[in-house]
C-alpha cells in the first residue's frame, strides 16, 4: 500500500535518512524503532510531503507521491499525527477535530459521521468537546491529536511517538485505541521508542540507526535479535 524505495532526505549537508526501504501492506501496523534523531520523524515528514526526497521514491498504491503537496497527500489518504501532540490550543476540542476534516469540508454528512466515530473511540473527547484544547491532560491531548488525524478518513495513518510523556497506564490504553483504529480498517505506521509495547501490537518492525535501517523483521524476530534486545528492550 505504501512503499519507500531508497528514500534519502538531506537537511542542508546533513543526511537525515539514507536509502530507506520500507513497505507497508494494507491492514498492517508497522513500527519504526530508533533513538532520537535516528530519522523516524524525517521519514514521516517525507511521506507527508513536508520535505522532499533527494533520491529514491515513495509509492502509495503503486503511484509515486514524491513532490506532491502535503494537502494533496492528505486528500489521497495519508495523514500524519505529529509528535508532541501539536494542537490548536485556543480552539475548542470540537474545533480542533473539525480542522482535521478540512479536506472533506464540503461534505458535511461525512464530517458528522467521522465526528461520531471519533467520539465513539474516545468518549472523553465528547465530554470535553467545548473545552479549550490546552485545558486537556496529556493523554486526552494525544487522543485529540489522533482523533483529529482520523477526521480526514485516512487509509494510512502515520503516528509519531504517541506514547511520549504519558503514564504507563495511559500508554497501554493508547495502544489499545491504536489497535482499535487498525481493526476499523486504517493501516498504521508507528514511530516509537517504547519498543516493547509497540512491537506487541505490530505486524512488522524496522529499526533505524543513524538515518538508515539497521534491522527489519517480524516482531518475533526483532524480539529475539540480540542487538535490538540490548538497545531497545533493556535485556
Amino acid at each position, binding site marked *: 500500500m505504501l512503499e519507500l524505495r531508497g528514500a534519502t532526505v538531506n537537511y542542508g549537508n546533513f543526511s537525515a535518512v539514507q536509502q530507506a526501504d520500507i513497505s507497508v501492506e494494507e491492514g498492517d501496523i508497522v513500527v519504526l524503532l530508533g533513538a532520537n534523531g535516528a530519522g523516524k520523524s524525517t521519514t514521516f515528514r517525507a511521506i507527508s510531503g513536508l520535505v522532499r526526497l533527494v533520491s529514491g521514491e515513495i509509492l502509495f498504491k503503486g503511484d509515486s507521491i514524491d513532490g506532491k503537496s502535503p494537502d494533496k497527500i492528505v486528500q489521497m489518504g495519508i495523514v500524519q499525527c505529529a509528535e508532541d501532540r501539536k494542537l490548536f*490550543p485556543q480552539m475548542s476540542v470540537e474545533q480542533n477535530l473539525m480542522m482535521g476534516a478540512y479536506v472533506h469540508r464540503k461534505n458535511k454528512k461525512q464530517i458528522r459521521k467521522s465526528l461520531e466515530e471519533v467520539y465513539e473511540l474516545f468518549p472523553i473527547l465528547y465530554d470535553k468537546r467545548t473545552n479549550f484544547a490546552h485545558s486537556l491532560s496529556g493523554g486526552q491531548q494525544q487522543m485529540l491529536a489522533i482523533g483529529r488525524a482520523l477526521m480526514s478518513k485516512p487509509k494510512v495513518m502515520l503516528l509519531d511517538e504517541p506514547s511520549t510523556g504519558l503514564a504507563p497506564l495511559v500508554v497501554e490504553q493508547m495502544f489499545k485505541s491504536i489497535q482499535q483504529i487498525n481493526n476499523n480498517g486504517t493501516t498504521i505506521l508507528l514511530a516509537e521508542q517504547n519498543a516493547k509495547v509497540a512491537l506487541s501490537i505490530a505486524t512488522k518492525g524496522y529499526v533505524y540507526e543513524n538515518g538508515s535501517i539497521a534491522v527489519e523483521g517480524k516482531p518475533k524476530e526483532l524480539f529475539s535479535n540480540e542487538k535490538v534486545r540490548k538497545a531497545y528492550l533493556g535485556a
Partner: protein
Amino acid sequence: MRVILNKKMLIVSLIVLAILFPLFVPNQYYIHILTLAFIWTIAVYGLNLISGFTGYLSLAQAGFFAIGAYSLGLLTVKAGMSFWLAFILAPLITSIFGLLIGLVALRTKEHFFAIYTLCVGYIIYLVIDKWDRLTEGVRGLMGIPSPADIGPISFSTPLGQYYFVFVVLLLVIFLVYRIVNSLTGRSFIAIRNSEQLAQSLGISTMKNKLTSFVLSTFFAGVAGALYASFIRFIGPEISYTTVVFDLLTYMIVGGIGTLSGPLIGTLLIVWLSQNLQFLQDYRMLVFGPLLTMLIIFSPGGIVGSFHSWQLKRQERKRLNTGSLNN
C-alpha cells in the same frame, strides 16, 4: 448566556453611541477626526486579518491603502467615472494588485515577508510619487468628488460622510467577524499557530494565505477609497512608510489577532494624539516609550490582556468551585 447578552448589549449601546455622537458634539472638527479614525480602523482590520490572524506581518498596507485611494481618485477625476462605480472598482483593483503581489510575497516567511512587503510598500510610494503624468506626483490629486447623493440621502455634508463611513465600518467589522469564525478563519489561525501542522492536516496553506492577504488588501482598498472621497485631495505621502507604522501601532495597542483590537487601538491612539496636539512632534516621545513598554509587558495589547485576565479569572473560579465540591 449572560455573557452573550452582555456582549450584545455592549455592541448595541456602542452603535447607538456612535449614531448619537454628532448630536452631543456638534463641533465639526471632532466629527472630522472621528470619521478619519473610522477610515483608518478599516485599514487596520485588513492588516489584522493577515498579520494578526494569519501571522504574516504585512508592511505594505499603506501602499494598498494608497492604491485604493488613487484608484478612486483617478477613475473619478481623470476617467470621469461615476462615483459609485469607482467606489466599487477601487477595492477590486486593490485586490488584484494584492493577488499579484501576494503570489510572490507569500513565498517568503516571517521577517523576510515583513521586509519584502516593506519594500513593496515603498515601491508603491515611489511609483505614485514619480509617475507625474498619471498621479500628478507630489502635487497630489485634487478635486476628488464626495460620495454622490443617492436619492434624498446626501453624503456631501460632514455629518452625511460620518454616517456613511460608520456604516461601511460596521459592515467591515461584521465581515471580519464572519470570516474569523468560519472554517477559513480558523485555517488562518491554524497557519499562524504552525504552518507545518496546518499542512500536515491537509490545509492548503498557500491558498489560505493568499485569501487572507487579498482580503486584507481589499479592506485597505475600501479604506483608501473612503479616505480619497472624504479628504478629496490625496498625495503620495498616504503610502509612505510612516503610515504603515501608524497602522501597526493602532493594531498592536488595541490587540493583535483580536476582533475588537483594531477599533479600540485606533480610537485610543487618535484620541490620545489629539489631546497631545500641544506637544507637536514631541508626541512621539510619549508614544515611543509607551509602545515599547506595551510590547514588552503586554504583547497582547489592550484586548489581548483583557482576554487573558478573563481566562485567568474563569480558571480561578473553576478551581475554587472544584475544591468546594471535593
